Structures are given as structure tokens and as C-alpha cells.
């Protein structure tokens, strides 16, 4: 009988738990209902949700997106909102995991989200695009760069696609004659890294560059790169292409320095942030070239104002993820204004309206001037190459 009792208690617990959640959602939908009802009288709000990792390995990217988006939303609200409506912003953590990202999406839906700016990481984003397509919700990802992300019509990217970055890097190296023998060190367990690597190698061969070493590592073995570096060195590579994130890149630079190997290091947008790595001797990053749409010390007014606000609010220099997120919010604003959207439209109507106008708008942002979108969801903006000199980015 004792066991029966415990089971009974346990089921009761589950039941109350489920019921509790049910009630909560009811309450939420009621709240949303009253808000919607109040819309006609005293101004409803656009509810923009965002998903990204704020805990776990990739937390730094998610936090940058969250902070920057908040700045953009505050600016828009201070300037009178979108089409005269204020914007509400909510951010949910997904730990860069596909399953948790879908949970976060559902949680935001319960909050009443109308437009999604996310997810930050690629795998998570692909899982979420399926759900937004079902609901017809407009989705703009700041930084999920795989081409698989934009398969559905309702999804757009604010960042370059991976193939784009790989191709652009190879072209840049070949056109500027930086090297003829190149080595690549990439993370084979990362969608981002292997995606760029594949197109880079293809384009490099087409451009007549000699890829002398293609060395990979995985998320499980990202603390020692001496083998990969030695192979690149013995193959005589003059340039090492690093389509990886800056944490690993900082280790590679330190270890290369220890070995006395000094090729040109060439990175893509993931390297951005390397100057902020703790306990990393930034003098080692001297001469690193990277292809990024955003440089925090650019002289234009928009960038400087954004960087100043970001530093004041969060005490650090924003990276490219932050810039993409900031732009993404303004892109949503531009699309909503072009479509004449109002918050009382249903999620799917709003989604259809915004999707329809996306190919027509042109946005000047931090990461590019005159950004336009193809109907497929791909952005077109020019990559900028910068070199690290005296601890700062200098345009090349």
C-alpha cells in the first residue's frame, strides 16, 4: 500500500504541475487578451522575441545579442516606436541546443510573441525555423549563418551565409596576393566552421591557391592544437585560415608563438572578440587579418554611438554578434514600417506582410550600408577586411 501511496502522491504532483502550467498559460493568454483589447484605446505593443544561449559554451554570443537588441529596442521606443507603437522585447535562453531552442520558442509564444529575432546559433535556429514556418511567424536571425536556416520562406538572415564567408575569404586572399600556400584549421564538429571550410577550399582551388593542409579538431578536443600547427608548418603554409571562434583561435595563436611559427593568420567573423579574451596576450594577435562586417572602432557616427551606449550599459566592447542583432531589430522596424504593420494583426498575417516587403527594403546599419535581401532570405552586404594593429582593428 505504501508504494501505491507514493505513486499516488507523485502523480498528484505531476498533475498539479501540469495544471499549474495550464493555469499560468491561461492567465498569460488572458493578460494578452486584455492587452490586445486595450490596443484600440491606448496603443498596443509589437512583441519581438529573441532566442539565444545566455548559459553554456556559447553564452557570450547570446548575451551580446540580448544586450544589443535591448539597446536597439530602447532607442526605437524612445524615438516613438514602430508605426507609432511601442516595442516589447523578451529574450529566452536555449543553451545553443535545438531542443531547448524549440522550448524557448514555445515559451515566447505563450508570452505573445509576434516577431522572432533569433535563434543565435545555427543548429538551434534550424529547429526553430520549422516551428515558425508552421505558425507563419516572421523570423530574422542575427547570426545563424548556414544556408539550411533560410530554407523556409519566412526566415531571413542578417549575417552572411557560411558559403559566402568562405568564398569571400578565398577571393580576398587570392586577389590581394596574401599567400599561395594556405593551411586550414577548423572545427569539424561545428556547422559554422565546417560550412565555411568547405566553400573556402573549393574557391581557393578555383583561384589557384594551394591548400597544403586541412586540419580539423572537434568540440571535445579544443585545447591543444600543436599537432595541427606542426602539420601546417611542415607543409610550408604561409597563411593559416581559421574559420573558427575566437576562444580556440586565441589558443592557436599562443601555441604557434610558442613553436616559433609565424604565418599570416586569417579569420572570419568568429575571430571577432579575440582582443577581449581574458589572460590572452593581445600582442600575439598583431597582424591577424579578419573578414568581418563590423569593426568596433569604425569612425562613423552610428557605430560610435552604439559602441558608447553598449560600453556604458554593459561595460565591454560589442562584438559582431551584437552589431548584427542591433541591425536586425532595425531591419524588423524598416520592414514593419514598409508593410504598414500594426500589432493587432495576427501572427501569420504579420509574418506574410513582412516576408513580402523584405526584398524591397534597404537598410543602412552598423554591419553594412544599403543592406538588401533576396526573397530566399539571404542578405547582400559587403564584407570588410580588417587587420589587427596595435591592439585595434584597422581597415585594410
Amino acid at each position, binding site marked *: 500500500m*505504501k*508504494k*501505491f*501511496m*507514493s*505513486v499516488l502522491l*507523485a*502523480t498528484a*504532483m*505531476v*498533475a498539479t*504541475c*501540469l495544471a499549474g*502550467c*495550464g*493555469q*499560468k*498559460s*491561461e492567465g*498569460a493568454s488572458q493578460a494578452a487578451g486584455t492587452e490586445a483589447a486595450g490596443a484600440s484605446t491606448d496603443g498596443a505593443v509589437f512583441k519581438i522575441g529573441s532566442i539565444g544561449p*545566455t*548559459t*553554456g559554451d556559447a553564452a557570450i554570443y547570446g548575451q551580446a545579442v540580448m544586450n544589443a537588441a535591448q539597446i536597439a529596442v530602447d532607442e526605437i521606443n524612445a524615438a516613438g516606436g514602430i508605426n507609432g507603437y511601442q516595442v516589447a522585447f523578451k529574450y*529566452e*535562453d536555449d*543553451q*545553443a*541546443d*535545438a*531542443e531547448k531552442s*524549440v*522550448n*524557448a520558442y*514555445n*515559451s515566447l*509564444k*505563450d508570452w505573445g510573441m509576434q516577431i522572432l529575432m533569433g535563434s543565435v546559433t545555427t*543548429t538551434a535556429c*534550424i*529547429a526553430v*525555423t*520549422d516551428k515558425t514556418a508552421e505558425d507563419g511567424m516572421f523570423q530574422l536571425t542575427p547570426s545563424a549563418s*548556414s544556408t*539550411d536556416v533560410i*530554407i523556409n520562406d519566412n526566415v531571413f538572415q542578417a549575417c552572411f551565409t557560411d558559403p559566402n564567408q568562405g568564398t569571400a575569404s578565398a577571393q580576398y586572399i587570392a586577389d590581394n596576393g596574401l599567400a599561395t600556400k594556405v593551411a586550414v584549421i577548423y*572545427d*569539424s*564538429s*561545428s*556547422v559554422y*566552421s*565546417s*560550412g565555411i571550410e*568547405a566553400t573556402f577550399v*573549393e574557391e581557393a582551388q578555383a583561384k589557384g591557391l594551394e591548400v597544403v593542409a*586541412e586540419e*580539423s579538431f*572537434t*568540440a*571535445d578536443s579544443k585545447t591543444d592544437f600543436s599537432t595541427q600547427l606542426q602539420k601546417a608548418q611542415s607543409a610550408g603554409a604561409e597563411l593559416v585560415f581559421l574559420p573558427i571562434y575566437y576562444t580556440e583561435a586565441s589558443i592557436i595563436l599562443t601555441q604557434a608563438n610558442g613553436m616559433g611559427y609565424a604565418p599570416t593568420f586569417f579569420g572570419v567573423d568568429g575571430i571577432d572578440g579575440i582582443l577581449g579574451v581574458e589572460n590572452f596576450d593581445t600582442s600575439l594577435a598583431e597582424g591577424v587579418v579578419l573578414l568581418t562586417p563590423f569593426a568596433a572602432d569604425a569612425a562613423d557616427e552610428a557605430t560610435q554611438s552604439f559602441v558608447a551606449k553598449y560600453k556604458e550599459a554593459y561595460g565591454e566592447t560589442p562584438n559582431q554578434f551584437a552589431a548584427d542583432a542591433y541591425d536586425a531589430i532595425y531591419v524588423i522596424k524598416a520592414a514593419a514600417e514598409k508593410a504598414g504593420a500594426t500589432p493587432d494583426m495576427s501572427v501569420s498575417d504579420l509574418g506574410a506582410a513582412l516576408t513580402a516587403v523584405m526584398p524591397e527594403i534597404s537598410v543602412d546599419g552598423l554591419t553594412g550600408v544599403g543592406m538588401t535581401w533576396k526573397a530566399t532570405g539571404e542578405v547582400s552586404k559587403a564584407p570588410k577586411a580588417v587587420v589587427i594593429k596595435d591592439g585595434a582593428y584597422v581597415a585594410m
Partner: protein
Amino acid sequence: MKKLNLKSMKKQTREQLFTYTVIIVVYIVVQLLIAAGSMSSLMQGLLVPMCTYSIVAIGLNLCVGYLGELSIGHAGFMCVGAFTGALCTKLLEGTITNKVLLLICALLVGTVVAALFGFLIGIPVLRLKGDYLAIVTLAFGEIIKNIINVLYIAKDTDGFHFAITNGNAIKLSDEGMWLINGAKGISRIPHLSSFTAGIILILVSLFVVYNLVNSRSGRAIMAIRDNRIAAESVGINITKFKLMAFTISAAIAGAGGVLYAHNLSTVTATPANFGYNMSIMILVFVVLGGMGNFRGSIIAAALLTLLPEVLRELKDYRMLIYAIVLIAMMLFNWAPKCIEWRQKIVTRLKKNTGKGAA
């Protein structure tokens, strides 16, 4: 025909019937809540993951609770099930249009392949005494994950293309389709999993494990767990029964993996979903629910899947709270003092109700 009488039934049968009934009741209640529109999207989205982890926990409980062998690679079997199941769906998508049939095919393939891997690993390891299974399964989980990350399989009009480590080697014609694209895993998997499918799978796996445990083979398995030498002395074929339990355990984990893959449109082998941590997580479900207690595993898996999502309001602190709640729950369930205290409360309650009735 003998009349069904709850009182005259064996205790085990009664317990089993009770479990099935509770699951079906929960299913009906949830369906009613969904129909009434009073269940949040978050909860609805969590239903399939809850089923998935319950199934895997049932599988692992067979291995840990009844076979008495520690396996910390069940996420690896889940991974095998997820990838082979999804692969099967991608290949059959064009020929079979019925969603249910498609899912059943995927489940069969995923389960059988996971069982095969369990069998192959079991052959050398289960002959040994000691904790070797834990170490080997741990290694297996990591190896599978890494193999999938370097595996490229594609299909086009010329047939199948395979490559290892270098996806660039495959040149696809225009109608070509990637099946497994290295680290990108399998994408665009049709959404076939549903709560109904999950509940049916839970019932089926429970049916399998309950019947195994209460059969002649099950008693042999438990005899091996309790005293290997005694079991050997009465002529039980140790390796055979160990292999049987372990293979079934792996198969059930594989079925859970298939359900997992068809709930998301993309499946990648990352440390977060099929890594060591996930295996430990499943072990936590089993330990919290009670070794050898399948019902407990289901409840623990459902609760612990739910907990971090319900705590979303706490933002970044939720994983901290989650850990504390986990410790508290472990203590409440299994600390001797706590058990004593709970028994006291229960007897007091019984006394009170007894008095009330009198």
C-alpha cells in the same frame, strides 16, 4: 473464463495494470487540456521530449536496475537510433506517404540498429566481471558522436556517395540530396513524432520490460545481479542473459532516439544532446526514480525535463535552482531519515483517516 478480480491478482500484475492505467489517464487528461486550449505552447512542446526521455530511462533502468550493470553510454544508443531512424525516413519519404507508417519504419530500423550495436558491444564486455561495461559504453557514446560528425552520405541520380572527413569530395548533381552532412547532421527531417506516438511507445516499452522482468529469463537476470556465482552454479548461462537484457535496453534507448529525431527538424551529434552529459542525465532519471522501478523512471524523467523549463522565469539562475531542487529531491526520495519521516507521516495520516471513519 476466469473473472478478472483485482484482489486475487498477483501483486505484480496489479502494479503493472496500475501503471498502464495512470499513463492512459494522464494521456486523456492532457488531450482534454489541449482540446480545451488551457495548455501553454511550452507545455505542449515539452510533451514529446518528456516521452522521449521516459523511454530511454525505462531502457536504462532495465540495464542498471535489473541487470545490475552500469551503462553510461545510453545517449550513444539514442544517437544511433536517432540517426538511423532519421536516415530511414529521409530515404522512404518519397515512397511512403503515410506518416504513421513512415514513423513505424523509422522506429523499426532505429530500434534494430541500436539493438545490434548493443549486442556487438555486449559480446566482449558482458563476459567480464566488474565495471567494464561502464567504461566501454562511455567510450562508445563518444566514438559514435565523433564518427557521425565526420561522416558524409549523399544521394543523387548516380546512387549513394560516401565520404569520411572530407565532404568536399562529394560532388552532387542538382537533384542530389545530403543525407548526413558531417557536423551539420541530418536536416529537414519530417515532423512525425507526436504525444500519442510517445505514449504508445512508453506503453510498449513498459510492456516489454515488465514481461521480461517477470519471466523465467527475468528471474535469471536478477539472479545474476544478486549473486553471480550462485547463478552460475545452478546452470544459468550468464553471458546469454546479460546480453539479452543489455540488447533490449539498448533497443529501447534507440526507439527513444527515433522519437527525439522526428520531433526536431534537424539532428546533430553534439555533446549537448548525445554526449556524456546526456548519458549521466538519463542515469539521474533512473537513480532518482529508483533502480528497478520503471514507474519511478518515467515520473523522474518527466519531472526533470519539465523543471528547467518551468523555472525559465528565473533566467540565468534557473540551472542553479535546478541543481538545488535535484539534490533536495534525491534526499527526499532516498535519504534514510527522510524515508523514515515519510513513513511516519503516512502512518499518522492512516490513523487519522481510520479514526475519522470510525
